[in-house]
């Protein structure tokens, strides 16, 4: 029948003309994480094109970095990915230590692993809760924040702040853990173990959740690599890359001796070190569901790392060591280091001319590249899928706009 239409010369009028309209989703839209504006070209339900507009949270942290010494810039790294500030501090500190060839003490190294992995759990909890919110269910968001509160209390005890810690700094950490902190941390981990199964029941294996995320926003590994995506977004497409194992020597040295599995689907199955729920049949590697599932696996993985870090930290006897002076001179040259932050690989590039104040500071944001893919993923999807896809990328605007 279709053939008939094409050959029939008399057919002149065309489809019921649906005029496309430009619709603004954001910047103050409830489902865009922070101030992101998505301009959708849609004819009512089918979205033919999405164009993200960013820059609403731009504070030009890099310009300020050219007027502050390395340690003075730490609070600015807190405010980039404010959901995982600890990992941001770690990234910047390691980059500076790489240029200064500075070696932190054994005790500080293990404490850094412990704190970074706790930060990862907290960030993934927010990612999971907010994603549930994007798909319309409100309760998981509150369960996630109930657990995150406990982590924030632990951080508050360690460094006095709940969101912008500036705890990990160049040359080690600003203070050692208070007595009894490790016991509280272990108590938190023990009670957190069964709660994870609750989240799986609530979201991961929930039929409606699977229906809303399976085979939506499918990203091929080549596309992910070409756009420079990283972290759970990359591993969700099946690319086996994790900076804690494949990164620069100074970063992987922190994690040597720790046993952990990279949460990625290798030859058809996810790591089986814990009892994870089965992968539903209608999901496709690289879709929203897999990105979400990788984050859930990483939470369990981080819990193992924290337990190992607690044992090693309490085992080593040496002093914690003092961080470098506030106005420590940085040797001339440049250094670039990417660390595995919860949202992806966060790179810090430092160019120094020998004085204490760096000549140029550059923060490469993982969400910046992850967000760039929305243009490709959201073509031809429904309006309700746009928040599902953007939510699965787990972006934070503070980090994108810097």
């Amino acid at each position: 029948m279709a053939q008939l239409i094409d050959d029939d010369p008399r057919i002149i009028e065309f489809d019921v003309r649906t005029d496309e309209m430009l619709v603004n989703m954001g910047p103050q839209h409830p489902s865009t994480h922070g101030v992101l504006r998505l301009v959708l070209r849609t004819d009512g339900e089918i979205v033919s094109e999405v164009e993200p507009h960013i820059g609403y949270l731009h504070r030009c942290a890099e310009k300020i970095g050219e007027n502050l010494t390395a340690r003075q810039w730490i609070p600015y790294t807190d405010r980039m990915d404010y959901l995982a500030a600890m990992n941001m501090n770690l990234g910047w500190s390691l980059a500076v230590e790489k240029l200064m060839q500075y070696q932190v003490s054994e005790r500080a190294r293990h404490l850094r692993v412990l704190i970074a992995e706790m930060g990862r759990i907290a960030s993934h909890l927010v990612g999971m809760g907010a994603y549930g919110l994007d798909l319309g269910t409100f309760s998981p968001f509150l369960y996630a924040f109930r657990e995150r509160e406990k982590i924030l209390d632990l951080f508050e005890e360690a460094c006095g702040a709940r969101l912008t810690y500036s705890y990990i700094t160049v040359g080690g950490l600003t203070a050692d853990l208070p007595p009894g902190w490790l016991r509280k941390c272990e108590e938190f981990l023990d009670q957190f173990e069964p709660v994870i199964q609750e989240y799986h029941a609530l979201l991961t294996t929930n039929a409606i959740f699977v229906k809303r995320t399976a085979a939506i926003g499918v990203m091929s590994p080549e596309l992910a690599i070409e756009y420079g995506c990283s972290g759970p977004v990359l591993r969700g497409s099946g690319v086996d890359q994790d900076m804690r194992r494949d990164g620069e020597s100074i970063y992987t040295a922190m994690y040597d001796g720790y046993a952990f599995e990279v949460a990625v689907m290798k030859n058809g199955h996810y790591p089986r070190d814990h009892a994870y729920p089965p992968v539903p049949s209608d999901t496709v590697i690289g879709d929203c569901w897999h990105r979400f599932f990788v984050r859930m696996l990483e939470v369990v993985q981080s819990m193992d790392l924290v337990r190992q870090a607690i044992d090693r930290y309490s085992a080593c006897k040496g002093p914690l060591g003092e961080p470098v002076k506030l106005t420590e001179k940085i040797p001339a040259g440049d250094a670039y280091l990417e660390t595995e932050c919860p949202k992806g690989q966060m790179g810090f590039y430092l160019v120094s001319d020998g004085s204490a104040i760096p000549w140029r500071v550059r923060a490469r944001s993982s969400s910046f590249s992850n967000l760039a893919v929305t243009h490709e993923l959201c073509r031809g999807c429904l309006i309700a899928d746009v928040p599902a896809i953007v939510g699965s990328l787990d972006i934070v605007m503070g980090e994108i706009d810097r």
Partner: protein
Amino acid sequence: MMTTVLASVMPVAAINWHSVLFLLFAAVACACAVAVVLAENVVRMAFYLVLSLAATAGLFFLAGAEFVGAMQLMIYVGGTLVLLVFGVMLTAQAPFVAIKTSSSDRVLAGMVGAALLAVLLQAAFRVEPWRRPATAAVAAPAATPIGMALLGVRADEPAAGVPAAAVRSGYLLPFEIVSIHLLVVLVGAAYLARAKRRRTPRAIDVAASSVGPVVTARQAARSSASALVSGGGR
């Protein structure tokens, strides 16, 4: 004693609520019908149509024909008019929102309307029972007789002594004819509205599709068909 006191206080003649409601519904129906014709905004026209048909449903209920009243509400107001408002709303973009009618059309339409009204009134007043409203009576409202009649058994007028089988056949045949007719109309409408792809894309479509690299085949069909109308495009 109480009644006399109150009776004296209330000089007004007994209000017969039945007639008051009847007049109310009739007034609303007619007023809205006129408003449909006179309104400019297309969506308001549709809204007035909804009001006038709901008023007619009220009239049916008032006349005790609950089944027909509910039928009117469900099928006509709830079904047809929802689709009508749907259609009107989707097309109520700039060009169609306000429809001005020139005065000559009004006069012409007025005359035709008046003629039609005259015919209707004249026909209405020749109906025998309506002359003497006093004796008009309404059977106990019951849906079952109507339902049975639709199935072909006229249970409401069984001639005494005549076996049920010989009862005049109900409205089965006309009912079936109407439904077939509706089916034909639906199929026709579906055929007319189906998507016809244009063989040579128009210039504006080419411009629209050149905006972003087109990936999926379905998307190609969409962009060649949908023209980029709204301003503020790239």
